[in-house]
């Protein structure tokens, strides 16, 4: 899992930049980033608030388009997809996990997973996914009846159920307490191992970086370092 040359490249980002206007100034969120994401790896993108890590994740996830540069999913250039193609791309290839869970409050846990699988070509069984995150018995509960950790586990089930190429987690523990955060990371790790999906986690929490196969350090829109983690930690052993 550690030798780059053994790995198939899933994403290639080349000279990726993103800037956007904020009032009268232009904010450069990402400045010419170069990155490869390998199939089946768990990558952690680490950096302080405002360093451009979420921007990088959104560009990989097709939620946004870069100002310049390219991103390839295998051989397919996705950076300048139009809205319709980006939608199809998100539908088929990406599973998102957000900081604030973003479950639909008017759907039950099961329905929240189903709503994702309904637009996919090859989804995984919904109940199996709920069982995998340990929430099958709470499948008929609404988000407001679930704890934060449970909501995030539903969000993980939702992301995996789409059977995507990549699962992108944007500060998945950011809104959770320490214990719950660890629990969610364990679930994420298990999902990664069982499903062999590529997982990219964005976090500002240095401790979490230890669970990644590779850790990308970002600062002020620049990739400072890409470190290969020879022995990724189990989330159980993490402490912050």
């Amino acid at each position, binding site marked *: 899992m550690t030798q780059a040359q053994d790995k198939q490249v899933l994403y290639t980002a080349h000279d990726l930049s993103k800037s956007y206007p904020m009032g009268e100034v232009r904010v450069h969120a990402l400045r010419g980033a170069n990155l490869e994401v390998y199939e089946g790896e768990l990558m952690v993108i680490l950096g302080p608030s405002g360093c451009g890590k979420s921007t990088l994740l959104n560009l990989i996830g097709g939620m946004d388009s870069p100002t310049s540069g390219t991103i390839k999913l295998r051989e397919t250039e996705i950076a300048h997809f139009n809205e319709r193609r980006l939608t199809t791309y998100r539908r088929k290839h990406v599973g998102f996990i957000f900081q604030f869970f973003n479950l639909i409050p008017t759907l039950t846990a099961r329905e929240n997973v189903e*709503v994702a699988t309904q*637009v996919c070509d090859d989804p995984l069984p919904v109940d199996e996914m709920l069982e995998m995150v340990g929430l099958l018995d709470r499948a008929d509960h609404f988000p407001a009846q679930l704890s934060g950790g449970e909501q995030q586990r539903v969000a993980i089930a939702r992301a995996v159920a789409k059977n995507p190429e990549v699962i992108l987690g944007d500060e998945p523990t950011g809104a959770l307490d320490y214990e719950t955060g660890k629990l969610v990371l364990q679930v994420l790790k298990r999902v990664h191992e069982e499903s062999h999906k590529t997982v990219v986690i964005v976090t500002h929490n240095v401790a979490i970086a230890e669970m990644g196969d590779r850790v990308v350090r970002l600062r002020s829109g620049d990739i400072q370092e890409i470190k290969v983690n020879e022995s990724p930690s189990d989330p159980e052993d993490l402490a912050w």
Partner: protein
Amino acid sequence: MVGDVLTLKLLRDIRGHWAQYVAVALVVLLGTATFISFQVAHHSLLRTRDQYYAEYSFADFFIHIERAPRAALHEVRAVEGVWRARGRIVKEVPVDVENGDEAIVGRFVSMPRRRNRLVNDIHLVTGSYFPGAAAEEVIVNHSFAEAHGLQVGDTFEATIKEGKQTLRIVGTAMSPEYVYAIRGAEQFAPDPASFAVIFATERFVEDAFEMTNAFNDVVGILRPGARAESVLRRAEARLDPYGVFHSYGREDQLSHSFLEIELEALETSSYVVPMVFLIVAAVVVHVIVHRIVEMQRTQIGLLCALGYSKWQVVRHYAAYALGAGLAGVVPGTLVGLWFAQLLMIEYERWFQFPVLRVHFDPWPVLLAVGLGCGMCILGAVRSSWEVMKLEPAVAIRPQSPQKGRIVHFSAFRFLWERLPLTWRISVRNSLRARARSLFSIFGVAVSMVMLVMATQVTGWFDWIVDYQYRQVDRSDCRVELVAETSPAAALDVAGMPGVRRAEGIFQFGAELRNEWRTKDVAITGFPPDSRLYHVHDMEGRRVRMPPDGLLIPRRLADELNLRPGDVVMMDPYVRDKDERPTRVRGVVEEYLGLNVYADRRYLARTLGVGPTINGLMLQADEGALEPLVSRLSEMPNVSAVTTTRAMLENFVESVADLINVSVFLQTIAAAVIAFAVIYNTASVSISEQERDLACLCSLGYDRGDVARIATNDIMPLGLIGVIVGAPLAYLATLGLARAFETDVFKLPAIFSPEHYFLAAAQALIFLLISRWVSRRRVHRIDIVRRLKTLE
């Protein structure tokens, strides 16, 4: 400074919700405009009428008699409570105008040579008041002259006592007695071309009708505080030897009563219609401000933490609503005044006033501003008041997520499980925001009611025209005779070329009395087997004239508390005929006029006269009507010829334009209400769901799908609104029909499914447009930002 910052925030908030703001302002605009236009029109009509009546001494009471010597006028003047009284001669004759082919009835009204403090004086529009010595000088009512293009110096002919008399116009005038210039209540709409009021000198009229030193009509003014009823009773007693036909106070005078009906309708509408708009505006403001307060909860907490008082915060949101109110009220006032001007122009077609102009009065405007802004503030205060209940520390924290509500659909589980997830989101959202869903339904229902009522007016119109002039009255023309004659005259007329059928009728005015309840009515006797006039019972079946009693309309039966078989006292306005008992034999349906029907032989028997007729109904051969009318007009003993078709055409012409305009305006108003309600509730709902919708986008749903999901509920809720609106519309039309029911006409309680389908189709089109506009909001959602932040 503090105020300035909040004002700045206010302006920015408004900019952020400008489309919703415009929608509210539009509804307020409509409410204000209708209120001001109706109020100003009502006030202007009322003021013009009162000034006109006062300036031209419009009479307080009217007495029609057969013939009294001039000296008898002193008897009337001597009655306590009478201030001034004038004896006149009023007679009707057929009139001929060059190049005119329709039947015209001319009503002579005698005028004294000297015009000194005249009761029922006239306002000269052109010409002068009998300038020469020639007897044939006449002044005609201005609308008649205009209808025929007649001017001072022109002549026309009247058939008086078997001979044609040429009359020369020396002036055209208006009279307070003929503001609504119709000949009889059954005419409904003024037809200036077929009805002439001819003011002629006393000398001329006396000579022409052999009424030297006599009069047959009294008009008088009461002293302050005197009651018309008691004055009339005493005056009638004194004039009794001269044959009193009929007497009544100003409120029963034909023109005055029609004007009064219009004024009442205008005043009622000026309150009811704008209130509907303003209530809708208040609720829309409430929905919007509620959402803004929810979204700005943390800002409110922050303002309180910074030291702003809660009252200042509430005032801030009230000012937001006040802005919406003012944005509607200011243009609404201008549009209202413009509408009032248009209404006045429309009224000039119907009511003859010397000058009819908008009298600007500040209080309706002030009231409109107060109402328009007040309702908006009321809507806002209710929402922003919730802020008052919050402690700053609580407010500044983001609101905890809404409690999930498990919707028990066990009864519908089968359906529920087959409902797509995207629809489950919509159904649960609608159920969660129940008040807002109900408001959407209410808005569409109100819109539906307005649409049905708009088309209903056309329906009523078509229905009454068809009923009255095709099913009931099947004659082509009516002839009124100067004196009663034998029914054999009908046979003579039937033998004239071009006459297909002629039926003699016997008609007179009478007072019907049941104990203390009385009513003035027109009684018409038909041949028992009349083919030209079909009376129908309440179930719509044709009723034959009973041999021994009266058929009375339902409204009269209710008013006099009469049922078939009851005895009713009849006091005929016929000389030397006192009150006598008759019997009610049936209750019939009647929409235009207040007519009592009987077998003409029964009426003659009851009055103690031999077989007699005083009018004819005719059916003419195709194309034979015009020559027939002119031949009939020239016949001796004919006082008036009227053609049903002319009456029908006039009716259709006068009302059709008005109805088209009103249907158009009501449709616009219904569209604005539907749009304002649906667009605003949808906007608020989308704003609440922004994060869910962004989440669906992230899952790979495209924007179109998401927009559809966000607005899924519009059509079902709208459909419920249409379904709820339909019976409400039916009740409203019944209420409207009842509200506008007068002695003179009644609106049928008809239910035409096509009107409801049309209204539903229109409402659905409004909904589709609102949905389309609302969906555009979804495309503006910033997915990344919404998913990254808490509300």
